[in-house]
């Protein structure tokens, strides 16, 4: 684990292993993850803009599970917390929470690019 939970290299090694050691496929998968994360962040920001706590649930939920699969532990945790609060109906300072998620997503992107140049 590096950077206080930003990227768990063990999770990446596991992904590589279960996909038959195909490095090119792993890169493709990670790019898909980053695109998905951008989509979810856009959906989260739209929910904040619309003032809808309920609309935060689905994107936070999606980000939570894919982040966990690529080893983005902290991003997954932040998403889980946001999803839980949003389901409960009380999210304090939603804009700050979403921007914190966005900052962590950027950290994950940088960390991924650092170890996998092609991503």
């Amino acid at each position, binding site marked *: 684990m590096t950077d206080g939970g930003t990227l768990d290299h063990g999770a990446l090694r596991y992904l590589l292993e279960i*996909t038959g050691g195909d490095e090119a496929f792993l890169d493709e998968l990670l790019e898909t993850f980053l695109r998905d994360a951008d989509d979810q962040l856009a959906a989260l920001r739209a929910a904040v803009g619309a003032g809808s706590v309920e609309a935060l649930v*689905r994107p936070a939920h*999606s980000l939570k*599970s*894919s982040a966990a699969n690529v080893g983005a532990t902290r991003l997954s945790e932040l998403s889980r917390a946001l999803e839980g609060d949003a389901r409960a109906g009380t999210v304090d300072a939603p804009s700050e929470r979403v921007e914190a998620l966005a900052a962590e997503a950027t950290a994950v992107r940088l960390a991924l690019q650092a170890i996998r140049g092609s991503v």
Partner: protein
Amino acid sequence: MSDPGRILVVDDTAFNRRLLVRLLASIGHEALEADDGAAALAVLRDPDAPRVDLVLLDIVMPGLDGYGTLAAMKADERLRELPVIVISGVDELDSVVRCIQMGATDYLPKTVDPSILRARVEASLAEKHLRDLEREMTEQQRSVDEVLRIMTRSAFDLQVVMDAVVSAARRLTHSDYGVAYVAEDGLFKVVASAGGDPELDEYERAHPIRPARDSIVGRVALTGEVARIDDVRADPDYVQAGAGLAGVRSLLGLPILQDRDVAGVLALTRTEVRPFEDGAVRLATAFADQAAIGIGNARLLSTIERQRRQLAGFLSPQVAALISSPDGEQLLAGHRREITAMFCDLRNFTVFSETAEPEEVLGFLRAYHRAMGELIMEHQGTLEHFAGDGFMTFFNDPLLQPDHAARAMRMAVAMRERFGEMVADWRKRGHVLEIGIGIATGYATLGRIGFEGRYDYGAIGNAIIMASRLSGEAAAGQILVAQRTLAEGEGSVLAEPVGELSLKGFSRPVAVYAVTGLPAAGDSASPDPAGSVGARP
């Protein structure tokens, strides 16, 4: 590993879909993708899309979510049985429980573990495979039962049997078109078809097939064996003709055998390249065998019909019908019944046959037999035999005739009249031919009389002997009847007493009456006032 399955992955996150598709492919399954519930249902309901064996379903999705998708599937008869594995996070066990209550088969954690994925997927596929197999077996059994039932009910109706065979064989072998052909003068003609459009049916019916390698039917006809064509376009001998109309690609032909002869062919076709599997061949063979029984029965029936027609020329029609009737054997074996017997022979026939030319005698006999035969038919008597100038007929067997005594007497009157017209010419030439008739009623034993190779349907009993004696006693043109006959045929003829006659073989004299004619219309039921006996002897 189980057989490869086709699996639909439904998840709004591209990352999850890509990962699952990759993992499923690595364990040999083909995966399709849908990014929400609506897209998934569209794939599942598309009649042109390949059949899906299993759905991996995410719960939280935009639009139609996992619950909605599951509910829609369970409400759709065609999708209800399709297994669904729910994909869920470890913190979503409540959702999993809800999905399983809604009919989901199993669940998978979102944190992907290939061995768990594999185990769950293969367990679901195996279960579905078993269920499909069970359904297929039930369907096969049902269809075979149905055909057997039809065979039993309509064993001799070739059309009904062939229609049932063709439609069941087509359905169970998953064919597009099924046709049964029957051989006729070396050509194979359509007798039944299923699944074709009218244009194709018409073409096939208008074009009987000859034995040759250029068609599936011709090939089976040529070899007497099962023939398979996996793809007509890859078969150098196959010539597209009528089959071209239907865009046929894979074919199966099975012989319908009668004692090693190809009596017909059952042909099944598919419009896509999907070679007929061994299981389909086995199944279709069973139906071809049923068709063979159908053809055999139909041939048997036509043989029996032909024999009956031929026999009818030799035997009295009643006896010919009896021989091929269901209770014929029992009646032939012997039974007792009250009958009325009639003997008829000619007076002066011996003199006539000595003085006339033999050709004249034969010509006369032919005309006499024809005239009397017509009257016997008309009155539905059973002719036991013709012997020269005499013959014996009886009534009430095998055909039941409650008015047997009256019938016999009325027929005798008609015979006497007809004979009078017949011999008018001969009388002018000096031949005095006259008819003499004796009739008696009583119990007799009836049945097959004779020996292996030459049987008659005959009657034995006192009534027959008495009728014979009375015919011997009858003067020219006389109809003598026993008292019992007159009593039973009360009112049907006019008669007068002749007195009591001592007949050879009968210990006591017998009261005998002579029939004078038929009562005038309207007084048939009352005694003749003039003193001749009409009703009561």
